């Protein structure tokens, strides 16, 4: 069977499965819709959280980023997993005990202020939409490559699917669909990695293979270091980011992960506080399955790509791949524009090296090299991997289904928090408090539908690259929501004025800094280079400074304003104790 038919078949079957589950688990009450009736088993919830959490960026972009950043890619690995430690110990159990439906609702109650709740809604909607735009783009990319349709057509199909199960099933439908999506995405990710690891090192476990000896001799990481430094790049295990930047980016990703509303809300769905704690652990187990394979995929992909192009000693003319001899996968990816060759010195061979390194450029020009001739988009590394390793077509089709599952599950989770925030926090909480539960449920479904349209539009005209947009969402979550929730639980003295001032400071500072250098929606005001950065911190890492400012401002303002009222102090006391969480909140 040819690749296209096989891909349609496997992706189609996975869609049928998601639909089936959505129909079977239709939401009947707002409780079902927002938090799946609070009856989800912690292991199941962990698996759903993993799928919810692992986005198109994790699946498609991360290993590619690591492949080109080497050690610098560790920020994603530690940052996106370390956040679960914060979540498990600092947020999840207490928010579960509080026991209502949304993050802004908690902030509104704890800070006894509709304004605080509204600021939280604004942060949440902003974070979720920036994030969801990247997911929809990811869906489009995967569809266009594997189903041979345009990115726009892919997008519309993706929107249709999410619409059915997010709008009908609500949280209940999403939870079980996400479990199915996890299974699809993790097999799609690990199967090719196992094959490639075995081919390169004879060891099928990617995590171990990464540190094993190659069948051709020498440890893989040592060989990789030699290979890339010979071409003028930084050593793979050293990377090229400064320590302060690595520190700050890791911190942003950790706090951002813990502050992401669509992840937090998943811990509202388990029956007990105890379950919220262990469920975070299960979520990390399922996430770690992918996140410990990713660095291996990154290293192996970089190794395979480099040795394909540079198949002998650097500087020997015949050691560079002849363009006419390029493999099939190379030709296929050229069509997407994500892989491109430009013969700058006209020798018909591909020179791939670091032409930003002045010492190496000098050497290279002596060989008649006139600049790097290959541009590789990070996003193709995972998707092209099975083709590079000559794996059977069903593996390639499976990877397509996995990429789509990763993007759809995250998009659905995000759309749900957007819609619940609109129906529950904006409408029921502020604008139209008298609506019935049935009307609220309808409003939630309508909001989800509108949110999908907006998300589709943003995916059609993406504000920036997939991974960059996601980094943006993290900075904002780390600088606004995370500190507000954390202080809400662990401090009795933070006042509403303090919390609002803190959130606004963190939000405005972080957004301002990112816009200044990245210029999303507007033209950048300064070049995004280390020389211009404050204290050497890149826009990706600046959320950690925003977070710090949020804490400082919140404490300072709280000192100057009247202490929180007695019933709020009582609320704080209550959420700190697990007993009594079983009682369902009616509303």
């Amino acid at each position, binding site marked *: 069977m040819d690749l296209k038919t096989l891909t349609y078949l496997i992706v189609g079957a996975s869609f049928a499965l998601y639909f089936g589950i959505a129909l079977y688990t239709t939401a009947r009450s707002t409780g079902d819709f927002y938090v799946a009736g609070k009856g989800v088993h912690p292991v199941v919830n962990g698996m759903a959280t993993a799928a919810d959490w692992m986005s198109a960026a994790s699946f498609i972009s991360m290993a590619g980023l*690591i492949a080109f950043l080497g*050690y610098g*890619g*560790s920020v994603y*690995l*530690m940052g996106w*997993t*370390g956040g*679960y*430690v914060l979540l*498990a*110990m*600092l947020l999840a*159990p207490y928010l579960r005990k509080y026991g209502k439906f949304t993050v802004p609702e908690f902030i509104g109650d704890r800070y006894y202020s509709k304004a605080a709740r509204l600021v939280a809604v604004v942060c949440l909607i902003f974070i979720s939409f920036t994030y969801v735009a990247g997911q929809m783009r990811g869906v489009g990319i995967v569809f266009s490559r594997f189903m041979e349709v345009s990115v726009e057509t892919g997008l519309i199909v993706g929107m249709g699917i999410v619409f059915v199960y997010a709008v009908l099933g609500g949280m209940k439908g999403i939870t079980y669909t996400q479990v199915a999506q996890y299974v699809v995405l993790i097999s799609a990710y690990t199967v090719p990695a196992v094959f490639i690891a075995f081919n390169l090192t004879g060891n099928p476990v990617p*995590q171990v293979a*990464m*540190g*094993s*000896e190659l069948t051709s001799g020498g*440890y*893989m*990481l*040592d060989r990789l270091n030699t290979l890339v430094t010979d071409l003028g790049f930084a050593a793979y*295990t050293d990377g090229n980011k400064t*320590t302060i930047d*690595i*520190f700050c980016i*890791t911190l942003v990703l950790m706090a951002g992960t813990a502050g992401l509303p669509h992840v937090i809300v998943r811990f509202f769905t388990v029956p*007990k*506080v*105890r379950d919220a*704690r*262990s469920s*975070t*652990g299960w979520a*990390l*187990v399922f996430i*770690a399955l992918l*996140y*410990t394979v990713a*660095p291996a995929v990154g290293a192996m992909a970089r190794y395979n790509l480099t040795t394909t192009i540079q198949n002998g000693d650097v500087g020997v003319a015949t050691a560079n791949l002849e363009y006419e001899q390029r493999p099939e996968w190379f030709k296929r990816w050229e069509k997407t524009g994500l892989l491109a060759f430009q013969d700058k010195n006209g020798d018909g061979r591909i020179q791939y090296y670091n032409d930003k390194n002045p010492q190496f450029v000098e050497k290279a020009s002596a060989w008649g090299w006139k600049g790097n001739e290959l541009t590789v988009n990070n996003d193709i590394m995972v998707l092209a991997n099975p083709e590079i390793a000559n794996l059977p077509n069903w593996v390639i089709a499976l990877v397509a289904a996995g990429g789509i599952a990763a993007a759809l599950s995250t998009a659905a989770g995000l759309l749900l928090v957007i819609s619940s925030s609109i129906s529950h926090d904006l409408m029921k909480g502020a604008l139209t408090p008298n609506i019935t539960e049935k009307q609220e449920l309808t409003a939630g479904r309508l909001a989800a539908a509108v949110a999908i349209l907006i998300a589709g539009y943003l995916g059609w005209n993406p504000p920036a690259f997939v991974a960059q947009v996601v980094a943006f969402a993290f900075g904002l979550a780390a600088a606004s929501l995370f500190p507000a929730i954390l202080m809400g639980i662990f401090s009795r003295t933070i006042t509403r004025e303090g919390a609002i001032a803190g959130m606004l400071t963190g939000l405005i500072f972080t957004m301002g800094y990112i816009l200044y250098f990245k210029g999303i929606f507007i033209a950048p005001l300064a070049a995004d280079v280390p020389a211009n950065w404050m204290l050497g911190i890149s826009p990706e890492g600046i959320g950690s400074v925003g977070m710090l400012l949020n804490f400082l401002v919140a404490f300072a303002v709280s000192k100057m304003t009247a202490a929180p009222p007695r019933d709020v102090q009582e609320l704080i*006391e209550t959420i*700190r*104790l*697990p*007993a*009594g*969480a*079983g009682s369902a909140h009616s509303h």
Partner: protein
Amino acid sequence: MTVNSADSARATQRNSYWRASLRLIMLCLVIWFVVSYGFGILLVDQMNAINLGGFKLGFWFAQQGSIYVFVVLIFFYAMRMNVIDRQHGVHED
């Protein structure tokens, strides 16, 4: 009078529960910080002088080791918290 003393007993119990929780959280967060920010970032060069198979140790902590520690840490925390909940009589039924 009896109500007040019952109240203050409950408050003491709450306080000691909260202090025990905070101690456990601090312990876990110190380990969390040491394996990631410590071994993986701040001390990465020193750690890299040690080899673990084909891995430099600092690099291994940054790309894999810290993740394994995180997983173990959360389950350790969850288990210890269950014990603390019971000891202070605030566990769920």
